[in-house]
């Protein structure tokens, strides 16, 4: 005869509840992961909460056609900025050299 499972301890649900987001995104350390694994094996409420977390992770990671941007235009602007800063640095260096030459003359 199969023993009746113990009802989950509500205090444990609280502890596990704080870990579920990190469990769902795959970044929980092994010790905490084992705590969650052991608990969700017996607690249907927390199992459902975890399933919601996973749906949210999936939903947030789903591609969004309207926000995908090519990096090309941004890169062109950044290159123009880098070129301008380098040109300014070169001009400044030339000015300094000219001053040094003048002072030496």
């Amino acid at each position, binding site marked *: 005869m199969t023993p009746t499972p113990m009802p989950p301890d509500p205090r444990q649900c609280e502890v596990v*509840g*704080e870990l579920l*987001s*990190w469990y*769902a*995104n*795959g*970044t*929980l*350390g092994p010790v905490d992961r084992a705590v969650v694994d052991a608990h969700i094996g017996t607690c249907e*409420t927390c199992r*459902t*909460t975890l*399933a*919601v*977390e996973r*749906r*949210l*992770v999936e*939903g*947030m*990671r*789903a*591609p*969004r056609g309207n*926000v*995908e*941007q090519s*990096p090309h*235009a*941004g*890169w062109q*602007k*950044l*290159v123009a*900025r*880098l070129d301008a800063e380098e040109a300014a640095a070169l001009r400044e260096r030339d000015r300094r050299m000219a001053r040094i030459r003048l002072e030496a003359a």
Partner: protein
Amino acid sequence: MTSPDLHPDSSSSSAADDLVLLGRVAEGDRDAFRRLYSHYHRRLHRFLMRLTRERQLTEEVINDTMMVVWQHAADFRGASRVSTWILGIAYRRALKTLERTRNTNAQDIIVAAASVPDGALLDALSQGTETHDWIDSALAKLSSEHRMVIELAYFLGLSCEEIAEIVGCPLGTVKTRMFYGRERLRQVLVLLAAPRKLAAGAVPAIGGSAG
């Protein structure tokens, strides 16, 4: 603990690749910088759009961020992953820009006690193709602090420790923000749910805006 470099596009980079590229950037290698820029543009765009909600501002912050990377690549000491370092720069640049341009918006909307069983929410989240629009609309109603922690954890797959480093606050604060942010997200999802998504009577009225 490391998180996956979740970039479904072919330009995704590994932490080791990032480190090599950053080393070359530190030597002034523009081709390496262009590759690093391409690798990070998508994730920075997505992350910063959640924060600024404006495409032009987002592009400006991306370039400000990458300019800092170009100028300070040689200062990177490897105490964190390159991605954590770059996202931290982006977060701080975005906050600074937002402070200058406008109020950073956002307290969570006050939600009338919206208690829907997770089972009903799970069913609703499992329906149809509009789920990500629903989630995006709900996230937009959260405070930027809650939204950012959720974005960094769920979309970018970062650990609690990495998020603490990026947003510059203690671990406990990240955990608290995640806990309450998650609660708020659920409540707002219920508020915004199309009537067909959740059982009748489960959707309470919006209480107003918090100060």
